[in-house]
């Protein structure tokens, strides 16, 4: 077996350069095709969602002021002043759950990462690493289901309200994005060159001084990348959130009130509306906003991860 391989390799190497060249060209073409597939897919997705989402305004003639209001009633008959396609409450809802979840998860994730890398590396790698990996692997529908059966009744019985609330969504999301933030933070902190730690100790800094003033500061862009990635995931999460937030189309006045997000409105209504109707296009406009937000998050990451000199 080994000999065969070596022989054939030897033969290939002994062959004239023409065949070499053909193999080169073939390999190049193959990779180029794969790459262009990716680009075409993305371009067509962008085009499709944008054309659908914008036709709400250009074809169906829904005014921007109608779309960016909090009045949602696509089935309200014209003699009652409708239909209303106000999506502002859902946009606000999406941002609220995302930002609040990031506020809870960012310190927890970064703290866990520092513990794993600096304070108890052996224990951290043995116990915490598998824990975070497992958390990543739990499907979102399971999170939602646990939220619906455990968290919602708990909030209803101990904090009041209906249980379905902004708070429930925030808690479910922060658990969901915690592993993302943690694992990226771990990678970032581990990537800091040893010489920097050594220099800090050589100057007489304690371990905590080294961590708080040197490590966190140098790895800040990487840590922020993790947080933004987590936020992107939270912003686009549909199922788990939809199951616990109650999907009420209004801007919440408190943490205990039900809310709607862009994703939950899309998943609730997409199947029951007809392709090409204004209602359906309004849902596409929301999808377009989600897409723009994701692009914004990615831009943010690109800006933050520019190479730094230590």
């Amino acid at each position, binding site marked *: 077996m080994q000999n065969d391989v070596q022989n054939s390799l030897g033969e290939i190497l002994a062959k004239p350069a023409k065949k070499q060249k053909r193999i080169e060209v073939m390999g190049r*073409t193959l990779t*180029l*095709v794969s790459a*262009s*597939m990716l680009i*075409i897919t993305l371009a067509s997705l962008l085009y499709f969602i944008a054309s659908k989402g914008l036709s709400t305004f250009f074809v169906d003639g829904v005014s921007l002021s109608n779309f960016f209001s*909090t*009045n*949602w*009633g*696509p*089935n*309200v008959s014209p003699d*009652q002043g409708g239909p209303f396609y106000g999506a502002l*409450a859902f946009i606000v809802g999406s941002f609220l759950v995302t930002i609040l979840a990031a506020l809870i998860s960012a310190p927890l994730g970064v703290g866990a990462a520092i513990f794993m890398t600096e304070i108890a590396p052996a224990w951290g790698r043995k116990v915490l690493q598998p824990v975070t990996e497992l958390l990543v692997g739990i499907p979102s529908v399971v999170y939602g289901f646990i939220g*619906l059966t455990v968290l919602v*009744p708990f909030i*209803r019985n101990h904090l009041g309200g*209906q*249980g*379905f609330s902004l708070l429930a969504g925030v808690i479910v999301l922060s658990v969901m994005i915690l592993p993302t933030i943690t694992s990226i933070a771990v990678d970032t902190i581990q990537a800091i060159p040893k010489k920097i730690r050594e220099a800090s100790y050589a100057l007489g800094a304690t371990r905590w001084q080294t961590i708080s003033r040197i490590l966190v500061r140098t790895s800040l862009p990487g840590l922020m990348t993790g947080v933004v990635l987590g936020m992107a995931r939270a912003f686009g999460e549909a199922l788990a959130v*939809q*199951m616990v937030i*109650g*999907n*009420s*189309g*209004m801007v919440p006045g408190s943490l205990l*009130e*039900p809310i*709607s997000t862009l994703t939950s409105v899309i*998943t*609730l*209504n*997409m*199947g*029951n*509306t*007809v*392709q*090409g*109707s*204004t*209602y*359906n296009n309004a849902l596409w406009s929301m999808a377009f906003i989600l897409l723009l937000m994701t692009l914004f998050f990615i831009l943010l990451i690109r800006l933050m991860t520019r190479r730094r000199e230590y």
Partner: protein
Amino acid sequence: MWRKGLKVAGAIGLSLALIVGCSNGGNGGDQSEGGGLSGNLIAVGSSAMQPLVEEAAAKFMEENSGVNITVQGGGSGAGLSAAMDGSANIGNSDVFAEEKDGIDSEKVEDHQVFVVGMGPVVHPEVGVDELTQEQLIDIFTGEVKNWKEVGGKDQEIVLVNRPESSGTRATFAKFALDNNEEFRGKGGIEEDSSGTVQKIVGETPGAIGYLAFSYFNDKVTPLKLDGVEPTDENVYSGEWYVWAYQHMYTNKDSQSKELEQAFIDYILSDEIQESLIPELGYIPVNKMEVERDPEGKVSEKK
């Protein structure tokens, strides 16, 4: 330089061809060959109808080995548009095509295959088991916010709705609430499936929602409306007016009319109407003593 450009263009062209090559659409119901039915049918749409259509399809395929029927969910809107553009043979819908925005009802043919009765349900401990329609409208329009105002306990009312686009919600708003402008953004919660509504109404103190009869169970209390009980018999006679036809729409220019008709006739046959339909908690369309047109006018069945 231009050769490089040519190569890139070639690669892009090739990958496009690959993409196109991978998407071979179309579905064909073959014409039957001499007596025995054969071919493929695709039925898409209302998830409320799905369990029944699936069971019926399985039985139909047992009796006609040459036939293959695929049943998918996706919602009434998806079903109607699939029937309209011919991407599926049968579109299942719980509303009339005339009621759906963006559907050309000229292009599709309506077959009403069974009836679903719906009714308001409440959490068992609200202390109310009967309402007048007036009270129901007040509750769902947000006029009445506490159960004690309609003779129940001192308990805040929690509305549990279906999404804006749901067929069940449309039926309920049209008939039970008499087309009243309902309860938007007043803190009611919305859930995407009847199963979830049933669970939430059963668990949340003070909750009221609405469900198809097939979802009634001992965890929720169905309400009487104006003294009429939500039963199948009262739907037959038209006394209980919150019900909807379940439709199977076919395309008027379909290539496999014969097979579609055969399957729909099978669902309308006594065999299915008298066994499977009541078993799953639905109402046989052939027992109805009244009928309703797309505008919602009810008349005696001829």
